[in-house]
């Protein structure tokens, strides 16, 4: 996207100004979105995003600038501004003076789409969404169905003063079906939104007829559901998006962004037991076509599979460059950012609980009264106190070991280390699901995942 000479000039100038490390991140996005409601296209939009971010590191201090004027004058001026902003001239070594000898690495196409953004016409997309809508209309009470398709194509260049030159291309596609049911239970919703690092073949992996029906059935379940009970009780959490509990209760606490500042309740705990022995937690940036996968991270390092917790023992944090500088730990290819308007920080990719060996049915046995949280919404955590929450989208009462009537509107809340130790059994039916995670470096695609599992007690926020 930019010439090697210009990139070399910018990075060398930054080094001459005293930075220990300089990194230029350049990207171009093409995005398309389509929203339909009741059989009609409401909005179709296309976009082109284009910009660069320059990061200079002095010790552990960071200066970051971004622009979407990528002319040589603009980029060199930006570099000057940054160097002056720091107001200090440090050591200059021989490497900083001369031209940079870039070692170029290009993506191997591990997550490349079969059907690219330019393929198939717009009508094809409309027809697939219409199929999903038809499937969602499972009953006359379904009054409204909304479908949305998002297509992203991102080209990235990361070049550093250490001579790294990485080009990556990421294609992601997602569609979301939301059904609204109306009746005596008021207005209730159901939704499903598959997404992968693929092109339009997403519709083959997750057929609209199946996704639409699941959304419609969930809305109908919620329509006949009574308000959830309130209080502390055993909860079986469903697989796939159920993994959001670990994303909030554990994942965010293991990012060096918090850990390095001792602002996480799990700081300084490597090698210690932090969860029950049935918990093995993995963050994998390499899952083929995973929603959160990429060949390189946004600092230009190859992504990897990082075992965070093994049989309850903390094995690794998620480490970005800055985190590595502060902690001395090895970077794990976890430096991510929403786009050029953010400096990278350590973030999750595809994070999941490894399968256990308890048969799923066994989880329910012995529960006199509890909740089966089958499908989950998003959540939130405060790393400094470990207090977290996540919303339940579809739930049922467990009575005498059996799944009984549906209930709605419950949030589950807890304190990270405490409730993680209360996970007493993990089954084997691991599935993953896509989500968007918001944090310091913006909103990012991540996968969460888990098999069904049992928490011996947690607060269920229904109505008293």
């Amino acid at each position: 996207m930019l010439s090697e000479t210009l990139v070399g000039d910018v990075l060398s100038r930054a080094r001459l100004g005293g930075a220990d490390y300089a990194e230029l991140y350049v990207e171009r996005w093409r995005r398309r979105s389509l929203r339909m409601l009741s059989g009609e296209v409401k909005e179709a939009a296309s976009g082109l995003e284009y910009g660069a971010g320059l990061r200079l590191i002095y010790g552990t201090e960071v200066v970051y600038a971004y622009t979407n004027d990528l002319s040589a004058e603009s980029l060199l001026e930006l570099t000057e501004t940054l160097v002056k902003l720091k107001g200090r001239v440090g050591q200059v070594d021989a490497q900083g003076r001369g031209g940079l000898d870039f070692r170029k690495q290009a993506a191997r196409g591990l997550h490349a789409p079969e059907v690219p953004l330019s393929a198939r016409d717009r009508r094809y997309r409309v027809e697939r969404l219409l199929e999903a809508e038809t499937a969602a209309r499972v009953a006359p009470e379904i009054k409204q169905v909304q479908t949305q398709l998002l297509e992203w194509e991102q080209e990235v260049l990361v070049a550093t003063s250490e001579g790294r030159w990485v080009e990556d291309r990421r294609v992601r596609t997602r569609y979301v079906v939301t059904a609204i049911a109306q009746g005596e239970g008021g207005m209730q919703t159901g939704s499903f939104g598959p997404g992968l690092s693929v092109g339009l073949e997403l519709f083959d992996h997750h057929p609209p007829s199946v996704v639409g029906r699941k959304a419609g059935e969930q809305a109908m379940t919620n329509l006949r559901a009574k308000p959830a009970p309130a209080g502390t009780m055993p909860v079986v959490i469903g697989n796939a998006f159920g993994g959001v509990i670990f994303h909030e209760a554990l994942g965010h606490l293991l990012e060096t962004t918090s850990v390095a500042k001792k602002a996480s309740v799990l700081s300084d705990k490597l090698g210690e037991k932090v969860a029950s022995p049935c918990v093995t937690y993995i963050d994998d940036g390499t899952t083929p076509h995973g929603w959160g996968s990429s060949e390189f991270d946004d600092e230009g390092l190859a992504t990897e599979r990082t075992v965070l917790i093994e049989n309850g023992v903390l094995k690794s944090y998620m480490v970005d460059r800055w985190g590595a500088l502060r902690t001395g730990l090895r970077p794990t290819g976890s430096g991510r950012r929403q786009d050029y308007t953010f400096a990278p920080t350590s973030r999750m990719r595809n994070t999941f609980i490894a399968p256990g060996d308890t048969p799923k049915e066994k989880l329910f046995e012995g529960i006199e009264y509890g909740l089966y949280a089958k499908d989950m919404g998003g959540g939130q955590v405060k790393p400094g106190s470990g207090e977290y929450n996540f919303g339940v989208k579809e739930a049922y009462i467990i009575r005498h070991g059996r799944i009984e009537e549906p209930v709605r509107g419950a949030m589950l809340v807890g304190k990270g280390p405490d409730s993680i130790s209360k996970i007493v059994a993990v089954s084997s039916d691991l599935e993953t699901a896509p989500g968007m995670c918001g944090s310091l470096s913006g909103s990012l695609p991540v996968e969460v995942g888990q098999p069904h599992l049992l928490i011996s007690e947690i607060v269920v926020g229904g109505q008293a």
Partner: protein
Amino acid sequence: MTFEQAKDYLLQKARAMGLEAEVLATETREMSLSAFEGRLEEITQATQGGIGVRVVVEGKVGYAYTEEKTPEALDWVMQEAYENALLQGSGGGFIPAGSALGRHDLLGEGLSAPLEEKQAAALAVEATLRQDARVRQVPRTAYQEQEVQVVLGSTQGASGGYRTGVSVLMGSAILSDGGAPKQSWNVDVDREFHALEPGKTALELIERTARLLGARPLKTGKYRAYFEPKAFAQLLGVISFMFSAKNVLEGKSLLAGKVGEKVASDLVTVVDDPTLPGGIASRPFDAEGTPARRLVIIEKGVLKSFAHNSETARKMGVEPTGNAQRGYKGVLGVGHSNLFLEPGSGVRLEDGIVVTEMMGLHAGANPISGDFSLQALGLKLEGGEVAYAVENFTVAGNLLALLQNVSAVGEKLEWEYWGMALGAPMVEVAELSFAGA
């Protein structure tokens, strides 16, 4: 090419293609200074912007945007917007007749101060926080400022622009007095850098967090709830979804068909006012160029009006209210500016729970069904006095029922900034469900 030139290029191109079009560009300058352990740990400086079009082809609407201002990119934008428009089945879309709207400056010299003063402000928040022995860590303190230029033009005569911006001082701290830690944020936003007070930002954060130390579990049950202003403002942000005429027309609002009806307690009056002097989200006109005006949404419990753009207003046979919303990347929607619950005659604390903070609003509050169940932090009141702090509980109910059960409204408005400015005083709700131990 400047944004002004890019706008003219796109409008000319639209005319040549025989299309109605509206062009919106924003250009943002941003600076952020983060302090950590007495040094400026991260400095960010940026200029960024983009330009987006809405085109209408025989009543069908399409959108496209770009951040690259080359003729090739702008040509791509018009072609994509045109092809996107052809996908719409039914017509009825239009670009409203516009007028010369003038150039407005809402920011003035608000951000004018030497860089050193801004750096000192960020460092001062951190230093003040660290003076308190209970502060165990200060994960982030920062000064941020943003200056935004908005340019609007259409083939139907709209033409204008304005400059606005904010300065922000924020801090996050983890406190402990030996027991379990608590973490909180405090964010102060103002149009004037000189109105920010680092000491105040820090001390309020300490006070708000320290009172939650030693929190105990809350017994599940029904309690009288006292929402602190910023907590209620967050709920108002979720409720505002129902005020949007776009959501009403799309069958997503529980308030559909209820204009003129009693939907809340007599004590509830909700106003959206983009003309509020000094208002963080004040603006001279909306995203379609409709001049800003004060809109009463709920008056003494009665729903008076939805918030409209030109398209929703035409469909419902009313006048636009100046609530059109669109960023250059976005599509035409409805949004609020400075939305607030009018102050009342005061709240007297008795027995119940003071809800000081809520978490997980994006997951735990469903604006379509109105159901909410949210993680909260708070204080247990006994005989009007704070008995102890409470934690690890949720507060749940339905948003419409909550509005109907408001039993007292406080006298002093406080603001939260969430894309729009949300204001509320303290709000007492007669009875709500709390789930805990």
